[in-house]
């Protein structure tokens, strides 16, 4: 009888106010879309009578030590929720464990860090790589050569995408040769100059895969300069406004894009829910999609 009398709804704590801190990897337009999702969720809560405030604590430069300093400092401010996009999971993990120890509601977003923390984001980097490989392989008819701009050698999401791309290519399109594989470090200038040089090394290059947001743009610029638009296909990961234009112009063929608006929205939802003592999923895959000229037209 006692069991029947237990109302599980009583486990939910009423919440009227919550202050959240978001720590993305860096100041970048990509995260602006995430922030829009955050704002939308907050507006929804406002209608429910819950006052949510948030701090967008983006490091101005992508520097591991700088981001770690922020995480440490923000833990000390005892926020109601802390959302972190891990620049470097290896070192971030330790600090996030400390956040849990300090009873801070925590969620990781955008880049998967460790199974110990709830995560909302795409988490399908390797699959993205495979998708790109399939797209490019089919377009090239299974022959020719492609170049890779692999981003940063120490960034796990870049590494995973490249791995997926290479594995899939080897499996499904053994006829396609990898002409070059260069680390552009997610830096536009380096991406441009590496793609330019790569186009010289293999003048009949069939395609370029860029494993980060800067790489496809840089590759596209090099392809334009070499007057090989349509002959050297550019496929990449990570969409920012500049990418759309280049897709529209037909320079970039396809991009594996994410629904980052969702990431921001759900991060807020989960953090506030966690404060309300709701259970939240450990892994919410927000999914991605292949963006081409056709999808963009819709």
């Amino acid at each position, binding site marked *: 009888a006692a069991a029947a009398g237990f109302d599980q709804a009583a486990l939910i704590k009423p919440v009227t106010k919550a202050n959240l801190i978001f720590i993305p990897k860096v*100041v970048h337009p990509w995260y602006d879309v995430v922030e829009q999702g955050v704002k939308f969720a907050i507006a929804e809560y406002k209608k429910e009578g819950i006052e949510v405030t948030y701090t967008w604590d983006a490091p101005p430069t992508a520097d591991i030590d700088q981001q770690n300093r922020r995480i440490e400092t923000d833990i000390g401010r005892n926020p109601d929720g802390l959302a972190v996009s891990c620049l470097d999971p290896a070192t971030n993990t330790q600090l996030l464990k400390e956040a849990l120890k300090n009873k801070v509601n925590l969620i990781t977003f955008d880049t998967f860090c460790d199974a110990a923390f709830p995560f909302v984001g795409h988490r399908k980097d390797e699959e993205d790589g495979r998708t790109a490989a399939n797209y490019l392989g089919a377009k090239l008819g299974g022959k020719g050569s492609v170049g890779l701009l692999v981003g940063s050698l120490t960034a796990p999401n870049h590494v995973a995408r490249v791995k997926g791309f290479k594995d899939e290519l080897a499996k499904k399109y053994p006829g396609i040769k990898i002409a070059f594989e260069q680390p552009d470090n997610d*830096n536009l200038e380096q991406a441009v100059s590496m793609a330019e040089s790569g186009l010289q090394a293999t003048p009949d290059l069939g395609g370029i895969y860029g494993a980060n947001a800067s790489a496809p743009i840089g590759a596209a610029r090099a392809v334009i300069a070499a007057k090989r638009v349509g002959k050297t296909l550019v496929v990449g990961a990570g969409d920012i406004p500049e990418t759309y234009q280049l897709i529209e112009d037909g320079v970039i063929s396809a991009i594996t894009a994410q629904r980052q608006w969702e990431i921001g929205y759900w991060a807020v939802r989960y953090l506030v829910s966690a404060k309300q003592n709701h259970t939240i999923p450990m892994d919410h895959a927000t999914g991605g999609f292949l963006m081409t000229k056709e999808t963009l037209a819709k």
Partner: protein
Amino acid sequence: MSETKVQKFRSRIGRFEAIGIIAALAVMCTVLALASENFASSYNLAVVLRQASFVGIIALGQTLVLLIGGIDLSVGAAAGLSAIIGGMLLVHLGVDPWLVIPLTCLFGFALGTINGVLVAYARLNPFIVTLAAWEMFAGTTLVITGGSPIRPLGTEFQQFGLGTPFGIPVPVLVFAVIALVLAFVLNRTTFGRNIYAIGGNRQAAVLVGIPVKRVEMLVFGLSGSLAALAGILYASRMDSAQPSVGEGWLMPSITAAIIGGVSLRGGQGTVTGTVTGALLMAVLANGIVLLDISSYWQRVIVGAVVLLAILIDLIRRRR
């Protein structure tokens, strides 16, 4: 007769210091031409030269600053901020493309002059002043743009980055012209010689009546305007003014100068040296891709080649 003239000329321009590094560059080009058939293609050479130009233009400004015994850490950020301002002039205010370039340079000059005033008149440490300027310029860029590029800049404007009159890319032409002008200024004008004098012995320069502070201010201004020029040319080449564009240009600009024989203590260095240094670094980056050297080994190779290059220079000097 002509022997002595050459000798005279050499000694006049402060001995032919760049010869060692030119040799290193020549060796490298020969090796690459043998190892990769594509290296010597005219298109590839144009690519390498254009890549060298952006950093090269900035490195020339940096050279001036290093010559007076200073350092300019703000060049990259100044390039980024100026490119953004240039892009805004073009896109938001509809300024004529031909006017945008000089206006951007003027803006860069103003940025540099701020550094110059603080270094020359307030006598603050150039390292710290330009470090602070770096942060402030880069910060201002972020504030203005929120991190998004300004684009598209339009096909008319793209000619400055992509055009190839006489088959030579515009940035390469600009780089060459600036190098020639600066070589003339440094070797054949009092302003240029005053720069060497200040770097060699500032106190003595004051006592022989050189307007030291004015020269110092101007040099920082020039460094700023050359940074701005590189920034806006790059924006034109990319058809977008990128907030982060200059970020990676600081270290290469100093490296190109120093590899070319410019002394961090001031008073020593040549335009030829810096130009060679910039070319060497660009050829190295190009060669690494052409030979498709493993990503993991690249940095080791770059370090080793840089070391080798100055060792060649050393052997020359020891003889």
